[in-house]
């Protein structure tokens, strides 16, 4: 009898913080995605390309390197989930949205650097795990995503 009590007691103390942090993380991420989508629609006239040269080109007035970077982190709940995953294996879905947000935010910031440019060519991504990287545990604390490319200003 007392064992059941103990089991529920323990599970309660585990479940409540998890749900709490899940809710917080969900809200924070939702807000960030909303902002990302809004800005992506605004900047849709300024495309980015991975290729080095466009087949159709006008005369180029000016070109320069631009880069945007962002550091994103995940909440306690996602970290906990990733830890559980590391025992069993499989897709770590907890981190997928983190990486996606990082990438998109970095591209947006890169575009911010050159608001007058017609397009950005040769865009590449670099990511680095920071914050907890010195730790032995294989958990990602924060992720830095860098997007860089060549901004091209065409002759009008």
């Amino acid at each position, binding site marked *: 009898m*007392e064992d059941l009590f103990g089991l529920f007691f323990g599970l309660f103390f*585990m479940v409540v913080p998890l749900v709490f942090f*899940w809710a917080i993380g969900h809200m924070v991420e939702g807000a960030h995605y909303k902002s990302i989508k809004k800005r992506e629609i605004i900047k849709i006239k300024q495309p980015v390309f991975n290729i080095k040269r466009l087949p159709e080109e006008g005369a180029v007035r000016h070109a320069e390197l631009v880069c945007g970077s962002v550091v994103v982190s995940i909440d306690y709940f996602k970290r906990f989930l990733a830890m*559980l*995953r590391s025992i069993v294996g499989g897709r770590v879905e907890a981190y997928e949205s983190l990486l*996606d947000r990082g990438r998109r935010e970095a591209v947006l910031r890169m575009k911010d650097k050159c608001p007058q440019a017609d*397009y950005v060519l040769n865009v590449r991504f670099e990511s680095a795990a920071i914050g907890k990287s010195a730790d032995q*545990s294989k*958990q990602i604390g924060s992720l830095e995503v860098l997007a860089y490319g060549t901004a091209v200003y065409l002759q009008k």
Partner: protein
Amino acid sequence: MKIMEIELDKQLDLIEDNVNIGKTNLLLVCFQLLAGLLVLFSLSAFILISSANLIVDLLPDATVWKAQELMKVEFLAGSVSADAEIQAYLQEISDRLKAATPMRDIQLKLIYVKDKDVNAYAVPGNMIMVTSALYEEASSENEIAMILAHEQGHFYYRDHLRALGRKMSLLLLTVLVAPSADIGSLLDGLVGGLLLRYSREQEYKADAFGLDLMNKVYGGNAAGVIDFFERLQKKEGTSAKFTAFLSTHPLSSERVAALKENITQNGMKDGTKIPLRIKKVEKAEDSAE
């Protein structure tokens, strides 16, 4: 630019539909994983602990006594008694009880220590320790004898080795499963409770053994046998049942109930309590109690 115009509609679609993230509900996944791990770990712990218990059961007596000797708590073995007379008295009761058990050829040393906490331990290395607070609270020889018989039960059932086996099983599992400290402590907490259950189980068995021994040695006299446990029950109060699952000992009320049932099953009758031969000078213990 031509390229940009063609792709504009597709781009708007992409912003809304995100292929790069999963669609599953993370909370659900988390609890599924937790439940799965809990079941897996508990099952493995159960198997390991059962195997350890089986090994302890099958070990021959000689090996067991040798092993328990090796676990001897050295600093206690050489300690000076708080009261030599009382210690000798307790040793005499203990030896009288032991003579009726299969352990009659083993020496169990009684150690009487001065301590304000009421306690009696079966100490690894064939020693039984009794505190002065316990002796001073006792109201009859029967009560003390029951406590000593209970402690002897721990030796009879090889409980120290079992406890060691349990701890090592848990350690082994944590080391195997947990690459990092966080998971280790999580699983430790989940299954640690399981270990306490085994410990409480042991206490019940020692109680039953003690009662049986009292039946043999004190001629079916049930007087004074549950006094100590009833006193414990009063001290624990009603709030104890909420923290009972954290304890190595069962709820005293449960122990009393189990003992009472055993008393009727064994056919023991209420007789006269034997007063303590040596009384503490400060307290005047009344034998009519």
